[in-house]
């Protein structure tokens, strides 16, 4: 089958280094992966096409790149699964990290963020003579997260990172979760405290892209949500993120719908004058246009709010 690959090229040593797209046509077979095709292009058409790759079996994490707009592993993506539309297959380097050459990105920042979560076991007490005893369920659960191969796909497509470069990101948070959830680790409360800061676990915007693109089903966002729940559970000092969660649930439980001004006030705190002041222009514009939402005692509960409260009670049980 004749397939067109539209590859984003970048040569930092060219006279005017600018990324550009180059098309390559190739006869592909049913069993071919995108990586097979890229290797064939560099072996038979253009030796300078640059890509990291090694294991060919989705275990080393070298060939993370964006294919048709989403990050994935080239070695795990079948060409046949992409060409039903007959269009060219678009191949680009990962996002949210600098490009070194063609499809090769600089992952230094990625690893710095992983290091930031102190990704090593910090045992609770002295080492036992034999192995640590741990339940098979706890260990099986952890192997799901340990399946992360650090390919960077989740970081590439993370919507929060795109606007907030300080965010530690889904890969590092999933790694942090791996230790927080490890019964052998003794530092979970200090880990959670460290994640309870700007750039930490509350900066995820829950777009679900990391779950969507992960080639190993690590489910980073789910792990981040569990970290948040554990943080609240363990009573790490409240932050905007945890107050937002708690106020949100509390308002819904009482009113059955969201009192947005109240949510903002309770999230940031009424005494947070600078933040409150920054809302003023928006409030004035809303008043002028007659769109200021009711709040506090003026904001009525919906009819049948009892049923919502019952749901809450049941969930809490």
């Amino acid at each position, binding site marked *: 089958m004749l397939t067109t690959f539209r590859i984003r090229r970048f040569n930092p040593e060219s006279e005017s280094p600018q990324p550009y797209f180059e098309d390559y046509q190739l006869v592909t077979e049913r069993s071919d992966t995108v990586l097979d095709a890229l290797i064939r292009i560099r072996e038979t058409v253009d030796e300078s096409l640059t890509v990291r790759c090694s*294991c060919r079996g989705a275990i*080393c994490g070298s060939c993370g790149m964006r294919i048709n707009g989403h990050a994935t592993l080239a070695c795990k993506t079948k060409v046949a699964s992409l060409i039903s539309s007959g269009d060219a297959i678009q191949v680009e380097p990962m996002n949210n990290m600098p490009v070194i*050459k063609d499809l090769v990105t600089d992952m230094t920042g990625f690893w710095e963020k992983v290091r930031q979560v102190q990704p*090593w*076991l910090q045992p609770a007490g002295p080492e036992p003579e034999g*192995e*640590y005893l741990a339940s098979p369920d706890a260990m099986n659960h*952890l*192997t799901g997260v340990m*399946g992360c191969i650090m390919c960077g796909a989740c970081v590439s497509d993370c919507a929060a990172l795109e606007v907030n470069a300080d965010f530690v990101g889904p890969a590092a948070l999933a790694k942090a979760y791996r230790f927080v959830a490890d019964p052998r680790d003794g530092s979970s409360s200090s880990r959670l405290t460290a994640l309870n800061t700007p750039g930490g676990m509350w900066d995820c915007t829950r777009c679900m892209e990391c779950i969507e693109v992960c080639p190993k089903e690590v489910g980073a966002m789910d792990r981040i949500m569990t970290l948040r729940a554990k943080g609240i559970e363990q009573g790490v000092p409240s932050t905007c993120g945890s107050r937002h969660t708690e106020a949100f649930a509390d308002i819904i439980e009482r009113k059955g719908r969201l009192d947005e001004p109240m949510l903002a006030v309770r999230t940031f705190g009424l005494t947070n004058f600078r933040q409150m002041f920054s809302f003023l222009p928006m409030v004035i514009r809303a008043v002028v246009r007659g769109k200021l939402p009711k709040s506090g005692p003026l904001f009525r509960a919906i009819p049948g709010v009892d049923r919502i409260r019952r749901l809450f009670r049941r969930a809490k049980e």
Partner: protein
Amino acid sequence: MVTSYEYDVLVMGAGLAGLRAALAAHQTGATVAIITKVHPVRSHSNAAQGGINAALTDRGDKWEEHAFETVKGSDYLGDQDAVEILAQEAGQDILALEHMGVIFNRNEDGRLGTRRFGGQKRARTFFVSDFTGQALLHVLYEQAMKARLPVFEEWFVLSLVKDEHGQCGGVVAFEIRTGRVALFKAKAVIIAAGGLGRVFEPSTNALICTGDGIAIAYRGGAPLMDMEMVQYHPTTLRGKGLLLSEAARGEGAYLLNAEGERFMEQYAPNMMELASRDVVSRAEQIEINEGRGINGCVLLDCRHLGKALIRERLSQIFEEAKSFANIDLTEEPIPVCPGMHYMMGGVKTDVEGRCWDLAGGWRGVPGLFAAGEAACLSLHGGNRLGANSLLDTVVFGRRAGRCAGEYAKTRSQPRIGDGVVKDGENSIKGLFARLDTDDTVARIRHEMGRTMTESLGVFRDQEGMAHAQQTIAGLRERWNRVAIHDKGQVFNTSLVRALELDFMLDCAETIALGALTRTESRGAHFRTDCLHRDDEHWLKHILIYHRPGGSPQLDSLPVRITRWEPQVRVY
């Protein structure tokens, strides 16, 4: 301005052996750095799926049993002093890994669980689902981060350097990202750069497994040993050669021929599918050659294991079968064939990882160490048991690291002139200056791979191997002229692949030479023109020395036997 770095111990390679060695050397108080052509977690140790062996005595297992089965598995070519150390120290290393954070599978009582593996009667293989290598590698890298070990990532080593006394003094390498060449001075260098799988095509090995460390040590004057001993894994996917773990058979999967028979009954009535790998691979190849295969394959049948077990304990190969062969293991058997998997041979070392002999029984390079697949103790002899390779990397990686760290304390930094950097730069410039021809690095590599598989595969004979030897010599001539089309400095992977091919051709040459020299059949080395094991003449290792500008020089060493005299090998 010449860049140079200076450490007590420099470790080449950041897979399990390299990381373990670096951590052990660090613990001696030595200054340590790692140099690696890929980021540590991209290393090929990742690909080890099934597990890691250890006879834990507190649960009634005996290290002697593990040692004996390793010796028997090696077809009595393994050096028994090294095997005894491996089996005796396995338990402490498994526990050390567990304490570092490896998430080993557990039994209901919360203790470490085991599964069965080939060539062993008892279940003594500890595992993390079926990605044990990855789980270990990531944990050792965590420990390296914790220890703040400097890692020179994506640096490609060009050569070993020695001082005027022949003492190893470091390496010359270039940074792939910038193309700059630098000297890394060290009192001790540990080669832990992995195997050479890509010399064969196909192979289960990652594309980075190009024997760099083996060839660099060889050119630097260290002998290679057991190079004829190449393992063919019984369950690989045809075409690309991807591995399906022995864990499948360990958990009870069957091998069937085209007639639906469990053919291993004919070849290994006791151990069946769990006979050692050389035996199973040969059996499969006979079935295929005699017309009882299906398109060059036999079938691996997991269906009776049940969906729950497959998903939990074989999750990685379940996914692999689905994405790469479009087969649901719970519904259908999957076609598999023998494929190149592991190099038993490598850089000759003693049990402390030294690539020279304190007693002077063989020549080597003082200051040079090796560990892992690049090294040859010889532990695995003619055939490695499954789940002994991970164990090899941690036990002998640790020993090499500690010995190198202690050794460095007794030495001052060797004197190495800056001229070696210029030499490195000139060798790269020379490659860039070659005139364009029609030939390409990729074409030479494919021909080498096909030749090796055809003539040095499961079955070998004099004629085929001699032909391969000639072909390799011809490919070497072509390599000497082939041009590199990308002349850039930044991340030039064309250059990297050309240099890798250079190393691979040395490996191919020594494999063919070793195999032609050993006129018997033993372990994975099976000659249809010499059908039997010949203990009288060949209970010895073949050593190969590099001779610059000449043909390699052969030598031999007797097998070290401590307590197990060779017996007829039946499974």
